[in-house]
């Protein structure tokens, strides 16, 4: 019983350290800099320009 508890508590501490490291990494990478933009950006279709201007001009050459 106590051994299981030891193991579980140890796991909890390890998990906290991993999660903490993850959050620190995210903060350092600026993932919390803009809290509203990404939610809005996902709604825009980015990957299909109707008239790819520069691709077009390259074709003509």
């Amino acid at each position, binding site marked *: 019983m106590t051994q299981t508890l030891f193991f579980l508590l140890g796991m909890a501490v390890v998990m906290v350290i991993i999660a903490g490291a993850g959050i*620190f990494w995210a903060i350092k990478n600026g993932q919390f800099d803009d809290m509203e933009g990404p939610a809005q950006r996902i709604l825009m279709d980015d990957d299909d320009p109707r008239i790819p201007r520069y691709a077009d001009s390259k074709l003509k050459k």
Partner: protein
Amino acid sequence: MSSTEKTCYHCALPVPPGAHYLVDIDSEPREMCCRGCQAVAQTIVDNGLADYYRHRTAMPAVGQEVVPEEVQKLALYDHPGIQKSFVRQEGEHVREASLILEGITCAACIWLNERHLKQLPGILQVQVNYATHRARITWDDQAIHLSKILEEIQLLGYNAHPFNAERQESLRRQRKAKDLRRIAIAGLSAGQVMMLAVALYAGAAFGIEASTAALLRWASLILTLPVVFYAALPFYYSAWNALLGRRLNMDVPVTLAIVGAFVGSVWSTSHGSGVVYYDAITMFSLFLLSSRFLEHSAQEKSVEATENLLKLAPAMAVRVENGQHLPVPVMELNEGDAILSKPGEAIAADAEVIEGESAVDEALLTGESRPVPKRVGARVIAGSINLEGPLLLRVTSVGENTVLAGIVRLLDRAVAEKPRLAQLADRVAGHFTVGLLVLAAVVGAAWWWQEPGRAFETVLAMLVVTCPCALSLAAPAAFAAAGSHLLRHGILLTRGHALETMAKVSHVVFDKTGTLTYGKPVLRRIVTLAELDEQRCLALAASLEQASEHPLAQSFLSRIAHSELAPVQDARNLPGKGVSGAIAGLRYSLGSSAMSGLPSAELPSDLPEGATLVWLCDAQHALAVFVISDGLRPQARELVEQFKAAGVRVTMLSGDAVDAVSHIATEAGIESWHAAQRPEDKLAKLREFQQRGDVVAMVGDGVNDAPVLAGADVSIAMGSGTQVARASSDIVLLSENLLDIQRALQTGHASMAVMRQNLAWAIVYNLLALPFAAAGMIPPWLASIGMSVSSLVVVLNAMRLR
């Protein structure tokens, strides 16, 4: 203005009759209100970005045509001397800069800018921050120049200004990252410790082996360590600083409670008896850290928005050399240079007036916003704002930082001021802290005398349960929530007291031009009086207006392409009358009827009331009459009705003539109005209202409104207004939507109500909990729950404002 009027597909302003600017969008011709909007829409469509129109949720500002002069000005940004202050060198040719984007109204605007810039060759990276409207752009200087990037942004109908990110922003980012790390630590620990605490509480209720309980306690101790030794550090610093300054602040009892609870818990854990408070410590730290973080970020948002408004760097000046006007960077100015200062703009350097007469606002220096008259020979200071007429100046000394220093001072004011009620709460909390510490000592002594074993526990419970954090959070939480709610709707609070005063307003005073109306005269009709057709007359008039600074000039120029403008010889500006000049050898004049010398009897009778008539004449007779009028903003009438229904008096003060003012007043439904008011008359009227006991809110936009805005109890400036108006006002309507004034008023009322509830709750809770804690009747777990719940109630109540 009727509702059936056509509106511009791009900016939703009414399309003036007779205008014909079409752009095919999604294979359908759409009508635009002016050439500027047409140009912007065409750019958007040509770049395959028409999706913007489908995704946008708010209307952009009116489109502007990119004029050659502006482009020439932009070229200055390529100057290495200017770039030094805001461009970072990333590699040999790779540069990075931060830009403030003006005119962003919704997420689609950001998409539009990012997408368009990314298509340009030479752009390496573009990222626009939705919250701050700032863009970070990396480019290859061999392939593209900064001026080109700025020009492309202008083509889309936005304005971009470089700004110096190094200074405040990196500091702010560092602090934010630090705060987030502390919150993350506190949150992770609190979660784990709470879980173990549940086991301990359950064990206390249903029985638990002593060894298991000891193990759980040791585990909690380890998980609490990072909170006590890292996350809670700011509280210790703040308390220590306060004690050094012989003051008591909220953080003193907070620190006492955390340190005391931790020391007590460690003692209990190592002795295997007594109570532990690890769950209370971690929860408490988490709540306090997060609420302070929220408060901070709301404050910083408004600082950032204010900075965006007050952008000035890099400052430009107009140097006069041999009669030619050259825009130059301020840092290139030398002593003895002649510079031109236009009304409404900040003066670039300390200088002496050599020509012209005007008044300047030296509020940056004196803190008092009032016009100071300047004549030839008078000295003007860098950063002061020219109010009335153009001045020719001789530079006496150059200091590149003077202007910026002034701006920083303005900003400090915005941040430093706390609302009066919040100050009151701080003071009350201070007294409360003193009382609490004294009481805790007395109670501790009493328990020590009666029952020494329970003294420590009781004092600790008292400190924890009565922690004044609910009291200290009551006001800031409400203001932060209200502020961010308003900012999301485009209302920026620049001074702390704004909301509080807004709640008391009983009289709203409006300026007319630019506030109730668009402030942009629109050419509504052309009546031809001779053989020349409308288009030809328009081309002549626009050509004559090219050189004019008069606000009416823009209404002609926006209707015609630059290619159609004819060169004008011998252009003359006759102040108060009009302009004249020779085109293709023939002499024309454009101006008021007084200039034409003709009777107005020949005109058709159905001209709109209150409109301005401009006559185009050649040497012999009148060729055409242009009917120009300024439209009422569509929300003006509704706003006035709402105010009347709420029992708020409404008055309009305008510098314009009686005819135009009475016309607009009837249209907006305002009964009380005064025309032909000079700024000092407006101020006198305002004082009169105030003496009658009214709390006056002033809404204005112009340079002439600045002293009046400063004199009102609370002042509101339109976002498009001049810099002076925005700087001297308490609230800035970035949204340009008049109904937002009503929203600000309502939010003011709501936040005062919430704040009162919060204060009442915090005081009642503390007064109720204190005697029980002192009597030793509150067990530790209840103390920590009570503390957390009392703060949570305050924060959640404030969140209702969002």
